[in-house]
């Protein structure tokens, strides 16, 4: 290769390298420019957004007020908004989850129904209860639900009309299901009714927004018992016949309460008269302990109480009344010995046997499988190999057991059934208490299993 050609090649190579270098430099500059532009745009947008955020920020308090104003237009959170009383948040209709007070005295409660909705689901609602002398349901709206496929049928129109303006004392005391509202989602509708009733119940019994004769009697009872008996949960037993049976002369029994507390003896409270003339006597035993049917110990009584009323309370135990109502010939003859061989069945156990002079027995049995895996203990009266009646003695974790205690539907269960076969409730369970009903059914079958294996004419299975 000549020297000139060689020089040309070197020169060309140098030029190519230089061009490549320039191109690389150009590419880097372009990349840097692209990144710089993107970064600048991001920064400017960020600053703009920060400014807007400063101007348009909506605080959590404002958001909360707005959400509440949808249900109750005059809502403004009060400074003295009370905390939820969690110990009393569970009601016979459902559970109150939260509450907030408005500056005008109204309350907005978040209440969840018991499991009575579609597919045993629940509905949680916000319920606004107005203040004043006669608190009413001022508004409500659905917060959330579990398994309510047809919740969409409950329109905004329904939420603006159903229950609105009703006094919390009469929201639906007899029929919380509110049937006939006609939404096409009956179970969901029932759950809504229960949730609203739960809120109303809490307003009456815990917030004391309104006083009913029952709540006044309960307050007087709690005041009489004092702190020594703190923690007892009292449920009014609305058995008109029993109230009538406890009449002393012209003095009528206004209310009969049963009180229970974990690991404590149950109490029975008899309230006669109202206001200043109210007289209360509280007894223990005599409710569930048939050994002392006529010696129910007096726990507390009003000052200067008519001794006749005390004697009546001691002698007219609800336990005895219920037994004799189911089996008039029952006369307590003493305690029977539990035959351990048949005391434990598949889903329950037998605890006690009460004997009657006419051969009838009362089997106290505990059934498993209740709500929250709790149990229900019941007395089953058996005579002539037939169930004459039954009553609930105690329970664990069964929040809605009072629905069964006060249910006329439940009072007819099993009566007249033979003890020789398995008993099923089927669809006859009390709405909203499916699990407790199951536990009762297990207890009844346990009692029957015991009775058919131990009573005369019954051979071992």
């Amino acid at each position, binding site marked *: 290769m000549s020297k000139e050609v060689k020089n040309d090649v070197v020169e060309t190579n140098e030029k190519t390298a230089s061009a490549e270098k320039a191109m690389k430099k150009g590419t880097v500059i*372009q990349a840097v*420019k*692209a*990144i710089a*532009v*993107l970064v600048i*745009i*991001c920064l400017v*947008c960020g600053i*703009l*957004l920060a400014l*807007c*955020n400063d101007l*348009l*920020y*909506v605080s959590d308090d404002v958001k909360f007020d*707005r959400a509440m104003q949808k249900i109750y237009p005059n809502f403004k959170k009060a400074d003295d908004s009370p905390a939820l009383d969690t110990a009393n948040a569970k009601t016979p209709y459902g559970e109150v989850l939260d509450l907030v007070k408005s500056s005008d005295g109204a309350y907005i409660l978040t209440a969840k129904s018991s499991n009575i909705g579609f597919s045993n689901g629940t509905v949680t609602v916000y319920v606004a209860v107005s203040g004043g002398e006669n608190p009413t349901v001022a508004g409500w709206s659905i917060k959330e639900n579990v398994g309510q496929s047809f919740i969409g049928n409950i*329109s905004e*129109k329904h939420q603006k009309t159903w229950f609105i303006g009703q006094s919390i004392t009469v929201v639906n005391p007899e029929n919380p299901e509110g049937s006939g509202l006609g939404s096409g989602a009956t179970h969901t509708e029932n759950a809504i009714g229960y949730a609203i009733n739960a809120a109303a119940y809490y307003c009456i019994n815990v917030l004391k927004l309104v006083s009913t004769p029952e709540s006044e009697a309960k307050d007087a009872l709690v005041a009489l018992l004092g702190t020594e008996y703190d923690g007892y949960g009292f449920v009014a037993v609305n058995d008109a016949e029993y109230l009538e049976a406890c009449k002393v002369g012209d003095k009528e029994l206004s209310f009969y309460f049963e009180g229970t507390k974990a690991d404590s003896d149950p109490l029975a409270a008899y309230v006669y008269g109202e206001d200043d003339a109210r007289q209360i006597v509280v007894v223990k035993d005599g409710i569930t302990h048939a050994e002392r049917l006529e010696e129910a110990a007096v726990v507390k009584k009003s000052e200067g109480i008519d001794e006749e009323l005390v004697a009546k309370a001691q002698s007219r135990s609800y336990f005895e009344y219920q037994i004799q109502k189911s089996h008039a010939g029952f006369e307590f003859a003493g305690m029977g010995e539990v035959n351990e061989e048949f005391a434990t069945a598949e889903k329950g156990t037998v605890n006690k046997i009460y004997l009657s002079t006419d051969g009838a027995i009362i089997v106290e049995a505990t059934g498993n499988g209740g709500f929250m895996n709790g149990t229900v203990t019941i007395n089953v009266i058996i005579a002539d190999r037939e169930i004459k009646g039954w009553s609930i003695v105690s329970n664990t974790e069964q929040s809605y057991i009072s629905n069964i205690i006060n249910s006329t539907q439940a009072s007819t269960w099993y009566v007249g059934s033979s003890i020789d076969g398995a008993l099923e409730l089927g669809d006859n369970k009390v709405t909203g208490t499916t699990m407790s009903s199951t536990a009762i059914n297990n207890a009844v079958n346990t009692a029957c299993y015991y009775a058919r294996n131990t009573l005369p004419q019954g051979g071992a299975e």
Partner: protein
Amino acid sequence: MKKERFSQIALDGLVRQNPTFRLVLGTCPTLAITISAINSFGMGMAVLFVLVCSNVIISLLRNVIPDRVRIPCFIVIIATFVTIVSMFMEAFLPDLFNSLGVFLALIVVNCIILGRAESFASHNPVGASALDGLFMGLGFTVSVTLIAIVRELLGSASFFGIELWDASKFSIKFFTSSAGAFLTYGLFIAIFNVCYNAVERKLKHNRAHKMLKPVTAETAKEAE
């Protein structure tokens, strides 16, 4: 700007390139929010605002934004305006904000906005881009509001939230369902396109007719 250019942009946005009925863009919000006319109108206004603002800014920066990072830049700009709209609605129109829910935030990825930024605003001057945003936004707003009016009327017996008759006596719940949304949308597209094609054919025919020279004695002689 020439009058012809203005009318061309306006016609494109409202009719010829109507984003909902002709280009079938922004289908997700169209199907989801047309259950109520108020929601649809609110959504339309939000899209209009974002379209105008993003088109203006992108057009202004069209010579500054390098080609290789144009999409990230567009997204950042669009997202900024969507966030501003969202903040504004939350502060002043909380009911509408709650009703639109996630679809408000999803305006960021609305094909109409990104499409106009990419195909128009990044190649045209500010004025034209703003007009394009305005008319595209109006086209979208009118379309979704029309669909919503029909669905609300038949499904809920109301018009812009005002109850016209008792829905329990007559209403076709199907129209409030997703399937009802698809059907209504499909019918609107069909009707719009049938009308559009008919008008266009007629216009073409008229244009062609005008272009033909009238036959006179002189022209006939020339032809001979």
